[in-house]
């Protein structure tokens, strides 16, 4: 039987569902209220909200990259990757509510706008909004390009077509439903996609644990290398065993601070109970974080791999029926698309809403043309991402890719996270963003520090600057206000 035909049927069916969801979500979007497009009209319930948080935070890396790292370094990757699940749950249970209430009171529609308003608005606020939007656009664009590339490559082998055509198809669908329904469409499609991802994780975990004897699995791994299950270091996370635990604060800040994650807290219906969201996040996140175990399974039962990165593709090829293999590949494409659509929506909002309000003093907040501008930004930036994937110099993409979301996190910790509990000043927030960006960026580019430690040191430097500069300039700010 030709399973490529089945894959095409699956793809066309899911594309039709997603466009349908986009059309239905467009009801939350109205011409004169930007919150409809940017924040789904603050309408997300507990399950949809939890689903979009988990789906966005779980990129293609979880399915493809992480099992490869587990194959090479052992169980330490399973533990390191797992920390994202409790971190998201902690962010939802103990931070989301405070942020949501403040944003609702101020009427913030995006994270850069939240930063501007929490620091008093005015000209200083507009400056902060512009800088935060610019950093967000630069650092997220490259991340989005890498997701488009990954989904394009996987789609090409899945559908037996060339990579450019595959990337065009995948990004076009994302552009259509995001443009049509804004964040509501992104959140609802994420919900459908995360259900598929969780189902895929359950099928994979079930196959692994029911097909072998656990003690045989452990014996085989110990025979290959005892440090696969009992490592002396936390490599690739760091030299000391404790280094792996740094992933927890990193992942917490990832969920609470990054604009494409934190904006979801603003989009919840005001009466939603965050403890219900926390339960969904913990359960779905916990199931998805079992996937890297595939690396340990492959190491024990299929040791001849040319490259560790082949762990998941070879696992599917060796241990799954071709039809199931096709369906799980669709779920992996879902993981990539659910991250890419959130990034597209965030960079488009930063361009059409934040940069517009920062540049033009008299720009209207909910102008009648705002919806068209927001939709145009989605199309423009989606196509820009595709062209960057095809034509941008590889050194530029890899250079920006190294900075990644860790540097964005270090830039935003003071103005987004600390400001929710302790309000600093505009110069404090500006200094924190610049220092966080430079510290994390230089550590990532010029030292051999890992992707966890560099951004965390950047976060520390940024937080200290936010506090010290805000204290030093507070009197001036108060005098000016008086």
């Amino acid at each position: 039987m030709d399973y490529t035909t089945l894959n095409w049927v699956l793809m066309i069916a899911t594309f039709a569902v997603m466009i349908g969801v986009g059309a239905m979500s467009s009801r939350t979007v109205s011409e004169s209220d930007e919150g409809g497009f940017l924040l789904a009209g603050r309408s997300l319930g507990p399950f949809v909200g939890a689903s979009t948080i988990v789906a966005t935070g779980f990129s293609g890396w979880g399915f493809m990259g992480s099992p490869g790292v587990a194959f090479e370094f052992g169980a330490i990757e399973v533990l390191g990757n797992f920390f994202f699940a409790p971190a998201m749950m902690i962010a939802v249970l103990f931070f989301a509510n405070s942020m949501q209430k403040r944003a609702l009171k101020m009427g913030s529609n995006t994270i850069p706008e939240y930063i501007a308003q929490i620091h008093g608005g005015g000209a200083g606020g507009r400056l902060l909004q512009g800088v935060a939007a610019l950093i967000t656009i630069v650092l997220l664009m490259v991340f989005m390009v890498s997701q488009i590339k990954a989904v394009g490559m996987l789609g090409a082998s899945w559908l037996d077509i060339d990579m450019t055509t595959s990337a065009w198809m995948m990004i076009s669908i994302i552009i259509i439903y995001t443009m049509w329904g804004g964040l509501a469409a992104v959140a609802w499609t994420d919900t459908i996609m995360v259900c598929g991802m969780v189902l895929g994780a359950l099928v994979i975990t079930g196959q692994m644990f029911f097909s072998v004897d656990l003690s045989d699995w452990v014996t085989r791994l110990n025979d290959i290398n005892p440090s696969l299950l009992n490592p002396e270091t936390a490599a690739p996370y760091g030299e000391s065993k404790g280094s792996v635990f740094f992933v927890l604060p990193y992942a917490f800040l990832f969920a609470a601070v990054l604009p494409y994650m934190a904006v979801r807290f603003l989009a919840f219906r005001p009466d939603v109970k965050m403890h219900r969201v926390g339960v969904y996040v913990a359960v779905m996140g916990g199931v998805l974080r079992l996937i890297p175990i595939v690396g340990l399974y492959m190491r024990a039962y299929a040791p001849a791999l040319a490259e560790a990165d082949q762990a998941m593709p070879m696992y599917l090829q060796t241990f799954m029926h071709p039809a199931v293999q096709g369906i799980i590949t669709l779920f992996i494409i879902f993981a990539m698309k659910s991250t890419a659509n959130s990034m597209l929506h965030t960079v488009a909002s930063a361009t059409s809403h934040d940069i517009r309000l920062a540049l033009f003093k008299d720009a209207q907040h909910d102008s009648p043309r705002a919806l068209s501008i927001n939709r145009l930004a989605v199309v423009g930036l989606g196509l820009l991402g595709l062209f960057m994937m095809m034509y941008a110099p590889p050194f530029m993409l890899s250079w920006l890719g190294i900075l990644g979301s860790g540097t964005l996190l270090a830039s935003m910790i003071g103005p987004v996270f600390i400001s929710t509990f302790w309000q600093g000043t505009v110069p404090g927030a500006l200094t924190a963003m610049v220092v966080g960006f430079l510290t994390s960026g230089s550590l990532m580019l010029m030292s051999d520090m890992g992707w966890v430690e560099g951004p965390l040191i950047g976060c520390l430097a940024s937080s200290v600057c936010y506090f010290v500069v805000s204290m030093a300039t507070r009197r001036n700010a108060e005098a000016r206000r008086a």
Partner: protein
Amino acid sequence: MNSWVVDTFLLLNAVMLVIAFGTAWLRSSREKRQGGR
């Protein structure tokens, strides 16, 4: 399982679920008490 990584992984999974369901139970029973007054 005689592996500190796997033992920590299992322990933390259990802790995460206890915190999630425990917080939900505590907060909802507090809300019910407040609603009943």
